[in-house]
């Protein structure tokens, strides 16, 4: 047994406002030094979960452990995890240095040590000269970094970030994503990041927890979340996905035969990403990413094919999006290279390797 204690451990956390279950029996272990993202639509409970961890909201049941210590009953001001707020919540009546030093001061650190720590952090966020300014004299990106430094200053067991980039414009947001990631790497801190932006989650995280209706639907690496979604929600919330309702005809010898769109698709069973044993007669959903579909019909086996009318073409420079209308009426999105598409095409056949699709059991 290793003695690696997780930085944060949540055990069966639940919280309800009246009949609405905001957090529904969530358990989660976050190892030290990991960058984990809670990803979900607004209202899925991710921010409430963060606030519960720092003690600004009390769970109805469950336990919160930080570095192995149960802090479920501790007052907010005694918890060793720090948070970066969505609107930064910098103190407007204090200078940048006073803001950053606030947490140290609260720990009873001496004036000199606080000043030193403050200088270190201003170095870290590459704003060494701003210590004497007031927050309202700073740009959005600067404030964001100050908020980060302020939360890091008291050397927290983990850093929680509640949609910290939401208020920034796209360009700045991308810069800040890189910056955040690099600060996390340099400080070796555990980051728990909350966002509704799946690209942000994908590009920054070691692990992503996709949340929906107060539950964690899937916890995995970004690659696995994308390639092997375990639910329709995950498949469609993370990236674009074509979903095909299917029925299992038979499962035998490492292959599953599925009835989809009036034809039979044979899929290797390791592509079934959820549900322990699919049996004949079960309903399922097949997930195909738009870029997994390629134009043309090769002779290769292990492929499924779809034919339909092109109803819409949108050109993006390096990519082109095609909407294909199948005979069943279902619309399919294809993300292709412009060269692969002939101008004026009306009817088209596309194919997908069975290794590139995923099958989700219904229910």
């Amino acid at each position, binding site marked *: 047994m290793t003695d690696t204690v997780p930085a944060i451990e949540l055990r069966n956390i639940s919280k309800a406002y009246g009949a609405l279950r905001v957090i529904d029996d969530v358990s989660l272990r976050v190892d030290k030094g990991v960058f984990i993202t809670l990803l979900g639509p607004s209202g899925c409970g991710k921010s409430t979960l963060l606030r519960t961890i720092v003690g600004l909201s009390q769970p109805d049941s469950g336990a919160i452990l930080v570095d192995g210590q149960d802090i479920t*009953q501790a*007052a*907010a*001001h005694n918890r060793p995890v720090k948070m970066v707020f969505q609107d930064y919540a910098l103190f407007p009546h204090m200078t940048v240095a006073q803001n950053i030093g606030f947490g140290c*001061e609260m*720990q009873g650190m001496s004036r000199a040590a606080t000043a030193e720590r403050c200088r270190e952090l201003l170095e870290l966020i590459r704003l060494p000269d701003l210590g004497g300014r007031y927050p309202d004299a700073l740009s959005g990106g600067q404030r964001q970094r100050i908020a980060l430094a302020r939360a890091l200053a008291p050397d927290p067991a983990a850093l929680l970030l509640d949609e910290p980039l939401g208020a920034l414009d796209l360009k700045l947001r991308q810069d800040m994503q890189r910056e955040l990631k690099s600060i996390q790497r340099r400080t070796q801190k555990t980051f728990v990041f909350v966002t509704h932006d799946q690209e942000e989650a994908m590009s920054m995280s070691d692990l992503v927890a996709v949340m929906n209706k107060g539950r964690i639907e899937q916890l995995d690496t970004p690659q696995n979340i994308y390639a092997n979604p375990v639910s329709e929600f995950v498949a469609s919330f993370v990236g674009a996905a074509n979903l095909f309702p299917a029925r299992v005809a038979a499962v035998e010898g490492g292959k599953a035969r599925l009835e989809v769109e009036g034809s039979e698709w044979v899929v290797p069973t390791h592509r079934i990403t959820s549900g322990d044993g699919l049996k004949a007669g079960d309903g399922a959903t097949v997930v195909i990413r738009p870029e997994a579909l390629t134009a043309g019909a090769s002779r290769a086996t292990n492929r499924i094919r779809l034919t339909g009318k092109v109803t819409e073409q949108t050109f993006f420079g390096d990519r082109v999006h095609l909407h294909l209308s199948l005979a069943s009426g279902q619309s399919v999105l294809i993300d292709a290279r412009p060269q692969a598409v002939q101008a004026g095409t009306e009817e088209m056949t596309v194919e997908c390797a069975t290794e590139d699709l995923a099958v989700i059991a219904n229910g």
Partner: protein
Amino acid sequence: MTRLLVSLRSFAPYRAMLELYSRSPLLRLCLVAIIPVLWIGATNIAPLAQMVEISFYEQYPVRQGEPIEWTLRHYAAFFERSLYITAFVRSFVFASLATVITLVVVFPVAFYISKVAPKHTSTRLLLLVIAPFWVSEIIRSFAWIVMLANRGAVNSFLSMIGLPGTPFELLYNNISLTIGVVYLTSLYMLLPLYAALEKIDDNLLEAAANLGAPAWQRFTRIVLPLSREGIVAGCTLVFLLVIGLYAMPQLLGGPNNTLFAATIGQIFAKAGDSWPLGSAFSIILTGSALAYVGLFIALFQRRRRGGSA
């Protein structure tokens, strides 16, 4: 200071107290509510409640060992003497008139500051008319005495330009009182009016002019309806202020035109045994004034609904 508070936390009972406080929303609410509840109870409710109570006492103070006798006699007294009723009616008529006059005087001023004067000067103009607000009622009364007395500034000026019949009796009548009262109330009217007029979009007026509405119609159909809330607020404030005036009527008003607030004051200036009577009168004044204002507000709101249908 902060360091002291931080180091105080190493003291276990203090730490426990903070923990308890931050974990119990109920305790927090109670601690926050305790001063407000006590204060509002002691200053805004208890005195009024006691006043109501005393107004039913046969006599006050109640003598030691004697039971309290309850009576409606003090309320009846109001209707028995025409002196009281006259003062009461006079108060309401005067306050209403003063309110209307204030409105008529102040409206063009507010309109000028908010809509006509160049935008960059409007703050300065507003400050100019707000400035005398901080002068007390007594000083303002005195200033008007100096103006209106028989040998005051106005009479002196009039005789200087050779007007026959000077000095005129300008002071100690309803006119001098009205001049002084409007002087006192104009700011309470100005601020709500200014706030309401300021909010009206200039484009509305231009659009109306563009559609061919003449000036008078633009005023009655756009400016007036849109500033209605300011008018109601200003009139309410001014009326309630005037109905409770005590000092200025004694300094600027005539001796035979006593207002009801002064009547109440005089009753109280006597010995304590007249307090039940004064209390009853206070209740009558407060109740009628609030009812009057409430009716006024209700009427205005009904008109608006009717008008928009």
